[in-house]
Structure formats: structure tokens, C-alpha cells
């Protein structure tokens, strides 16, 4: 290092060609110019070629009537809606599958990851087998496995499997009773929010008290009692404003109730089980990455194995886990575009249909790329905040 400093301090005065700063400035400028001119050239060429080939261009088509129907519509959508709304429906479906998949993958991944470090031989081996199977199969195959499995195994709608609580399972999906809230049910929502706020407050006070006096307070059970108890109380007080809409047999399918389609179900299971295998490995690496001395020191302080894991090991492991976990979340979101293979109307599928019905390939692909980019950036942003909060605060 020192010798370089000396060299830099005495540049050869003769020519700039040998001046490293000027040189690097020159090359950086050159790269920027080349980059921008090639982008300009491509854009210019695209526009010119579109005109030459008589292909309509621009984003005006977004305001036209879509004319096709979509099977899963989280927001109101009919064939009379615009292409733009169709794309929004697709984007929402992607977000739904991504969020549900991330939650499920994280839960399964953590359980499997911790399971791989278990003292129990059987649990350890089962988790290892799980990881090795799901990690080594392409996600598309896993999706087909679940989808074909669902369609092959389950009976047709007229011979639906009856499950407890008025739910049904058949080839067309999973039917659950849907809660219908009557007037006055807002009270329950308010009670729930209140309970969460109170639980947070109790936790806060309990921490303060423990710091000050060392006395502990059963925060967990109090919170559970609050969060369950208050809404139930509100439910009873407001005169039980809840009825259930049960799925019923009609000519073709079951109608009514809450319906989870097999496309969504198999995509969710496939994506989350696939990603969970990677998350499990990340979690295992994170826990292994915490030095053994930490566990031993905690044990020496008299903590039992549960609190050691919860209070000492996991918080430190999270620092190692979160950055690669973000990558897995991004992968899951992007892999959700495989939905097209089984007909779940995610962004790729609907944008592809829009692209085909309008013939505007350049715009269609551009919209898709921007949408996935924004989704990924938002995920990264959120995870970066989490990461910053988890970072080791040195005292």
C-alpha cells in the first residue's frame, strides 16, 4: 500500500497518457458514451423498424377494451375492462402468489433448516432428504408434479371429498365456507386492533420492568389472551354478526364459499416447497455460522436450550441469513412466472395474452420487465430495512 501511495504522489510529468486519473476518466467517459449511443441506436432502430413493418406502436392500446376473461380476479374485472386493468389483475395475482409463497416458504424453510440440526436422527435425515429432493428438481417439474397430482388424484366435482367444517376437495380445487360479516362486525376489527396495540404495550412495559427489576412477565400468554379474547368478546357483544356461506353443489361445479383453484394451490405448494429447500440451507448455514462459544456461554449463564436458540443463536444467525434470504424471495417472485405452464393468470400470463391480442410485443415485454423489476426492487428495499434493523449493534 505504502509504495503505491508514493508512486501516485509522483506522477510522471511527461504525458497525460500515463496519468492513471486521466486515463480512468477517459475510459469511463468512453464507456458511458458507448453505452448511451448503443441504447439510443437500439431504441431508434426499434421505432424505425416498427414503422417500416407497419406495426402499431405506443401504449395507447392500454385504454382499449380487453375482451377476454381472467379466472382469478382480486379486483373487479370483466371482459369490458381495459387492457390496463387486465395487467393490474395479473400483477396483483403475481403479488398474491409471491407473498403467500414467501410466507409459506419461510415457515417451511426455517422448520426444515432447524430440523437438519436436530439431535434426533430421524428428523435430521427426513429434513436432509427433503432438501436434497426439492433442491435438485427444476421448479417447473415440481409445479407439474403438484398440478398433475392434484388433477389425477382428486375426484370430479360430483364426487367431491367432504371435509370437516363444510369444506370440499375435488379436481376443481379446494372449497371452504366463506365468512359473511353482517352489520356491527366492525367492532370485532376494532377490538382486534386494540388487542394488538395492548399486547405491544404490555410487551414494552414488561421489557422495561425486566431491565429495571429483573422480574419477568408472561408476555406471550398475555398477548395471546388479549388477541383472541378481545375480538371474541366483541363478537359476543355485537350479537354474533357472522354467518357462513357454504359451498353447494350446482349443475357443473360447487358454487358459493371460498374457492382455492388447483392452479393457485399447486403453484403455491411447488414454489414454496422448492424455495423452502434453499431457505433451509441458508438457515442451517446461519445457525452453524454462530460460534459455538456463544451457545456455551449462554449455557454457562444458566439458559436452557429453547431460550439459547431464541435469544442468543437466532438473532446472531439472522445477520447471516437475511441477505441470501432476500435473493431467495426474489427468486420465488420471478419463478412465479412459471405459472403460465399451468394456467394461473399471473402477470406473465395476462401480459402475454394482452401482447398477443394487441400484437404489441415490444411494449408488452417492456411492461413485464418493468413490473418485475419494480417488484424485485421493492422486495430488496424492504429486506434491506429488515437487514439494517437486524445488524449487530455494537456496544
Amino acid at each position, binding site marked *: 500500500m505504502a509504495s503505491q501511495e508514493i508512486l501516485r504522489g509522483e506522477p510522471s510529468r511527461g504525458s497525460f497518457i500515463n496519468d492513471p486519473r486521466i486515463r480512468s476518466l477517459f475510459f469511463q467517459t468512453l464507456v458511458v458514451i458507448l453505452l448511451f449511443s448503443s441504447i439510443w441506436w*437500439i431504441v431508434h*432502430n426499434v421505432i424505425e423498424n416498427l414503422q417500416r*413493418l407497419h*406495426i402499431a406502436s405506443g401504449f395507447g392500446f392500454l385504454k382499449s377494451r380487453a375482451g*377476454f376473461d381472467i379466472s382469478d380476479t382480486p379486483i373487479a374485472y370483466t*371482459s369490458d375492462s381495459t387492457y390496463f386493468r387486465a395487467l393490474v389483475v395479473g400483477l396483483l395475482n403475481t403479488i398474491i402468489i409471491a407473498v403467500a409463497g414467501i410466507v409459506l416458504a419461510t415457515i417451511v424453510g426455517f422448520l426444515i433448516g432447524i430440523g437438519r440440526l436436530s439431535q434426533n436422527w430421524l428428523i435430521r435425515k427426513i429434513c436432509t432428504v427433503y432438501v436434497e429432493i426439492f433442491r435438485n428438481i427444476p421448479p417447473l417439474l415440481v409445479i407439474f408434479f403438484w398440478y398433475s397430482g392434484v388433477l389425477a388424484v382428486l375426484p370430479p366435482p*360430483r364426487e367431491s371429498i367432504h371435509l370437516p367444517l363444510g369444506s370440499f376437495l375435488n379436481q376443481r380445487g379446494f372449497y371452504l365456507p366463506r365468512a359473511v360479516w353482517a352489520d356491527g362486525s366492525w367492532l370485532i376489527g376494532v377490538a382486534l386492533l386494540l388487542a394488538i396495540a395492548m399486547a405491544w404495550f404490555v410487551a414494552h412495559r414488561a421489557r422495561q420492568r425486566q431491565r429495571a427489576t429483573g422480574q419477568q412477565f408472561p408476555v406471550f400468554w398475555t398477548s395471546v389472551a388479549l388477541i383472541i379474547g378481545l375480538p371474541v368478546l366483541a363478537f359476543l357483544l355485537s350479537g354474533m354478526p357472522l354467518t357462513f356461506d357454504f359451498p353447494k353443489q350446482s349443475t*357443473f361445479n360447487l358454487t358459493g364459499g371460498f374457492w382455492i383453484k388447483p392452479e393457485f394451490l399447486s403453484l403455491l405448494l411447488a414454489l414454496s416447497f422448492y424455495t423452502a429447500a434453499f431457505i433451509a440451507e441458508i438457515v442451517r448455514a446461519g445457525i452453524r455460522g454462530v460460534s459455538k462459544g456463544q451457545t456455551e456461554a449462554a449455557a454457562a449463564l444458566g439458559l436452557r436450550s429453547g431460550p439459547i436458540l431464541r435469544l442468543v443463536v437466532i438473532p446472531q444467525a439472522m445477520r447471516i441469513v437475511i441477505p441470501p434470504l432476500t435473493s431467495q424471495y426474489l427468486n420465488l417472485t420471478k419463478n412465479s412466472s412459471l405459472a403460465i405452464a399451468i394456467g394461473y393468470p399471473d402477470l406473465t400470463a395476462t401480459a402475454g395474452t394482452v401482447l398477443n391480442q394487441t400484437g404489441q410485443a415490444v411494449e408488452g415485454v417492456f411492461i413485464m420487465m418493468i413490473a418485475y423489476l419494480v417488484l424485485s426492487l421493492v422486495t430488496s428495499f424492504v429486506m434491506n430495512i429488515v437487514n439494517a434493523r437486524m445488524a449487530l449493534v455494537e456496544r
Partner: protein
Amino acid sequence: MKHIAIGILGAAALGFMASAASAGTLDTVKQKGFLQCGVSTGLAGFSAPDDKGDWKGIDADFCRAVAAAVFGDASKVKFTPLSAKERFTALQSGEIDILSRNTTWTSNRDSALGLDFVGVTYYDGQGFMINAKKLPGVNSALQLSGAAVCVQSGTTTELNLADYFKKNKMEYNPVVFEKLEEVNAAYDAGRCDAYTTDQSGLYGIRLTLSSPADHVVLPEIISKEPLGPAVRQGDDQWAHIARWTYFALLNAEEAGITQANVDEMKTSTDPNIQRLLGTEPDGKYGADLGLSNDWVVNIVKAVGNYGEMFERNVGSGSPLKIARGINALWTKGGLQYGPPVR
């Protein structure tokens, strides 16, 4: 995923394509020595590979006819199987020279997509197929309210389906797949109650199901589906070659020229036949199109006339057994009408 790849490639191709110099498609095709033809991924009677891997069907034969007209050799064709979504981008980007893939001619496709339809090689209409064994008592599409309907995405079929149920104030839930094989598999597995596509397609698909006899095609036809080949817009010469290949097939049938008798017909003294077969002294109808004068002889020798092509692929000579119906020549009460070669 492939359609995205093609979409991106198409977009990239549009970006990198030299903007000024673009030779005519005829010259490009002659130079590379074969015709690149976009077909379906496998629709019996229209374009589907047989057990030896040869593409069979009306759409595949139409490409052979164009190759015969251009090269005098019907084997100079390479087929590119395309899903409904991929087809237009593949043609726009120059990946294929002609799209002959049971594609419905619509105003939007003809104008805003940079395509030029050359004719209607098959007049079709959209219908529904159901499993009569599982749904006894359903004998009209109007009874399908509440049904799950399998359909291929990115087709006019998907749009007609939405229109039909809306017009008749019925509910349905669409089960949409990108690839024909995926739709077939889902319908066969019982994911949907009904399958909708062009009626000719339904008859073809029924043959591939696990128990064809259980399925019936409902009588309603809910749309007009004029299916025909398309070329890139802006290359008039190439569009003329494709269009007149189609007319030549019709005119050959009308004049009674068949694959078997085409050589005898060359000695005919009927001026109409002489003009068609390029035997008229000083006639240069083929040369005007940029082809050889015996172009029609080459076409008919390769694939026969339109009627022969029809019967062999979808008519009495095929498992589909579809009647000529409106696809008969105008002289026999149908809609197929070829303007004269003169």
C-alpha cells in the same frame, strides 16, 4: 416461457435489424434455399407431425404448395411449430416467411399487427365440446352457465367465448392455457366441463382424447373463423405469390386438374387451362409473379388441388371426416372462389 423468449428476441431483432436494406422475402427465401413455415404445435388435419415426423395437414400442405411454386420442389420447407401467442411475433421478426397456422383473419390482425392475410383456406366457426358421459342432458351451449371452460390463450376463441357468455348473460370460469397440449390434457383430466375452439379443431382434438366416444361437439357455432395464411405486410410480391398459390389451388380444382392428371392436362387446348398451367404460347403469368411459368403444375404435382388437399387432410380421406360444407367451391354451393389467372 418460450413466447417471452420469442417476444424478447423479436424485440431485439427489431432493434438490431438493419433499418434500410431489406431484400424482398422471395429473394431471401430463394437465397437460403428453403421456405420457413410457421405451423401449430400439433392440430390434427391442419398441421401435426405424423409418426415419422413429417408435418401433415392443410396448413402444412399450403406451405408445401408455396415451396413448389417458388422452387418447383415441395420438400424445400422447414416447419416451425408455434403456440398461439408466439405466432405473430415470429412472423413480424422474420423468423418465419409465412404463417400457416389455423389463424383467424381479423381486421386488427390485418391492420395493426403488420400482417397481410392472403386468403381463407378453411372457413370455420367456434364450437363447444363436452363429455356427454359426465354431463348427460347437456345438449346445447346455452346450458353451460356456471361451467368451467378450457380455452387456449391469445386466440380469437378466448374473445368470442367472453362475448358469447356475456351476450347470453351466463356465468363461466375460464381455464386458460398457453399451449394446445396443455388445454387438451386439462380437459381430458376433467379440469373443465367444456372445451371451446374452432369446430374443426374440436373434431381433431376429440380423436386424441383418452375415450373419444364419450365426447360430443355441441351444435352451436358462435363465431366466424375464417382461417388462412398470413405474410408480413409491406412485401407485395411475396403476398401475391402466397395469395395466388391459394387461388391456383382453387382454380385447379375448378378446372378439374388433379395430382394424377396434371401432366395430361398440359396438352389441353382449353385456353383457361393453358393459362393456368403456363402452356399458353407467350404466356408469362408465372413470370409476372416472380415465379416460373409452370408454377401451377409444380403446385398441383406436389399437393394436388384444393379439393384433394381438403379430402386428404380433413375430409373423407382422413380420420376427421369433415364434410366440405361451406368450404366447397362456389360452383358447388360453397364459398371457395378463385379469381382467374389471366
